[in-house]
């Protein structure tokens, strides 16, 4: 291992300002610090520092997404073989391998494009490569339908990194969750390729779909007044959907890791789920009102907790809403922020016929309003403080 360190130390002068390869400085630094925690010691302030850094933080988030990723790969295989009627005859590894071959290129494209842009920006700005994209690069593939063409993934990732993050100043400065920016970009730019029945199931041209199979997601069916999913399938994730969003169980495993380590805010997770449940209950309550078409009434009457295990709700609540940069920063604000995401997601999902799923837009919308929520929370804090001054004066 020593030769790696020696190599990086020896090449360091070459990439410094004025060196032959100075334009590689951020890349050199990026790889070096990835492999070796720097030897920098504290110059001012505290002499000891916590072992936590952004690399550790981000790698924990990536780790927490892994169950959803692995299950997503498996489910891609499951849905494929189900469609061609060979599920029962296919072994576990073959199913997984099929999914792996489908999903891995998407992950690679997302990372290659995103990190490439990060490297360029870091070099242009003359700062270190920031770790934020390690997470975004993993989240982007997981919220895409498996049939999204790779070039679309590339374009969406580039759009998200440049306009969703770098224009604001990089990791820590962005307003919206970069992964959701990528998804929203595709959703609005290529609506035809992003919806319908065929995008969720990976099929070759030669594959013959068995009679009666529909690739539609339970959400799309529910919007048409057709509640034909099994609750167990929805919870474990054997339903069509974006790659990583289908298994509530896999997502909850990740949630446990995020909550134990304290990296993800449990307040946001809980309040988002509470918001979704409350809105589901409200819809249940009004489902009997006159004037509703039968389809809408059926959807309204869907048991409220089914909303939590269908579609992207749970994935959004655990991995997207909790992005510390684009979420509310204050503790009280987090409750409000999460709760409103839950409410809005269900409203968009059920009441607006243009959108089969509402989580993405709900989170992006609340990202936009998070600073406003914080503003009022902070204002009330300051008000309390000034009041204290007046009382004692």
């Amino acid at each position, binding site marked *: 291992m020593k030769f790696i360190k020696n190599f990086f130390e020896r090449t360091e002068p070459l990439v410094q300002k004025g060196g032959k390869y100075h334009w590689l400085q951020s890349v050199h630094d990026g790889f070096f610090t990835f492999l070796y925690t*720097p030897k920098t*010691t504290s110059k001012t*302030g505290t002499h000891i*520092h916590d*072992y*936590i850094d952004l690399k550790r933080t981000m790698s924990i988030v990536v780790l927490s997404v892994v169950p959803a990723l692995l299950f997503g790969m498996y489910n891609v295989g499951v849905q494929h073989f189900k469609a061609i009627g060979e599920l029962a005859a296919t072994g576990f590894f073959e199913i997984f391998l099929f999914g792996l071959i489908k999903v891995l290129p998407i992950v690679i494209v997302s990372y290659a494009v995103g990190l490439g842009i990060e490297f360029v920006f870091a070099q242009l700005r003359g700062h270190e490569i920031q770790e934020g994209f390690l997470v975004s690069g993993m989240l982007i593939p997981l919220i895409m339908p498996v049939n999204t063409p790779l070039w679309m993934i590339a374009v969406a990732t580039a759009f998200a990194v440049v306009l969703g993050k770098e224009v604001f100043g990089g990791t820590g400065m962005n307003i919206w969750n970069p992964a959701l920016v990528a998804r929203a970009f595709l959703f609005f730019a290529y609506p035809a390729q992003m919806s319908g029945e065929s995008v969720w199931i990976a099929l070759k041209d030669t594959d013959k779909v068995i009679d009666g199979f529909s690739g539609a997601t339970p959400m799309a069916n529910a919007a048409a007044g057709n509640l034909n999913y099994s609750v167990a399938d929805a919870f474990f994730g054997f339903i069509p959907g974006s790659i990583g969003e289908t298994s509530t169980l896999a997502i909850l495993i990740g949630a446990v890791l995020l909550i134990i380590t304290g990296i993800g805010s449990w307040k946001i997770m809980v309040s988002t789920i509470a918001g979704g449940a409350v809105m589901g209950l409200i819809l249940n309550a009004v489902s009997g009102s006159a004037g509703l078409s039968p389809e809408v009434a059926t959807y309204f009457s869907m048991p409220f907790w089914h909303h939590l295990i269908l579609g992207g709700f749970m994935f959004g609540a655990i991995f997207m809403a909790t992005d510390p940069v684009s979420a509310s920063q204050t*503790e009280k604000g987090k409750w409000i922020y999460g709760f409103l995401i839950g409410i809005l997601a269900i409203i968009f999902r059920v009441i607006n016929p243009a959108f089969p799923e509402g989580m993405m837009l709900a989170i992006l919308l609340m990202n936009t309003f998070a600073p406003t929520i914080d503003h009022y929370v902070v204002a009330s804090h300051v008000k309390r403080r000034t009041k204290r001054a007046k009382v004692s004066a």
Partner: protein
Amino acid sequence: MSEVIKLRKGLNIKLKGSAEKALEKLPVPATVALKPTDFPGLTPKLSVKVDAEVKAGDALFYDKYHPEILYTAPLGGKVVSINRGERRKILEVVISTDEKVGSAEFTKADPSGLSAEEVKEQILKSGLWPFIKKRPYGIVASPEEQPKDIYISTFDTAPLAPDYNFVMDGQLDTFQTGVNALAKLTEGKVNLGVQAGSAFSSVKNAVINTFDGPHPAGNVGIQIANTNPINKGEVVWTINVQDVLFIGRLFETGKVDFTRTVAIAGSEVKAPKYVQTVLGAPIKDLVGGKLVETDYNKRIISGNVLTGEKVSEKCFLGYYDSLVSVIPEGDEYEFLGWADPGFSKFSATKTYFGKLFPKKEYTMNANIHGGERAFVLSNQYEKLVPMDILPVYLLKAILVNDIDKMENFGIYEVIEEDFALCEYACTSKIEVQKILREGINTMIKELG
């Protein structure tokens, strides 16, 4: 007050090598020094020249803007050098000690029988005034100001901190005299922050506030905020426990006696314990021969590992310090440090397995373990500051230089030590204490 104020926010950092309760009396040091750099914002004017003979308690320099505040020699002897830095800034005034020179004479009297003016004048003349600091800002108090109260914390919760109950053993009467003198200086009360069962609970002429909780519960700023917080326009004075003894001795004997007990602690000290020495003693005298022999670099810190100053053996003990900490420098690369499961790594977060062993003591070095980033995570700082304050918002207000916001977010209530844990725990490795001091300097410059 018998009620215990329980603080929940904060973090105890358990470092290896806390001082054993044993006291070694060191011989009188050959040189001692006073460092104007120990006093933030001070513009020193010299009262002596090189080769001048000074008694203990004679002025070495004074404050240009408060000429009545004198900084006096800890021991008698001859001024041997005045070390200067860039732009002729005075760094150290070094005295070669000589026991025969002796000490300046002051009034020996029970402070309870003196007027406030007499007490104040005696403290100013003898050079004990700079031990009294003021909040806001944590700088030397202005004698003409009227403090709302005076606060003394009698325990320190910082890593490796000395136990003042041990240090104070047998000197409680002198401490009482010091408290009596301080009580004259305020129309309010002297407030002592104590832990349950502490000997300090028996001190008279003072309000006793009992605290329980992790660091920074022992910080005087936290104790003020949880009993009688500072509002705009108010001033509170603070003083360290051992420095109250200096005042007590002055009134009891009529002479200055800057004898101070210092803990020598840390993972790189062979047998961590307490030593009795004098203010401004050379670091070499304190740690010489006491450190573990190693093939890696060590860092010596005057003060604790959160707020202290990096020193070398050539330096002198800091004016306000009762602790010298020695830890590994840690100027080495670590292979895939971020991926280590971390059974031996302590973290404020629960991202390393070290968290599973809460009672373990850790060796920590001065490596910052990462690179500086923008603020990313939220609620990291808030969990470590037991005050009604939003640390990140205050720091951001300082970064954009917005004085109104700094005021609203509570800059009058905090100094560096209160936010030091935030800097320790910060994922983004932000230099919190430096930012805060810049904000305080701005406030002093703009509002006086």
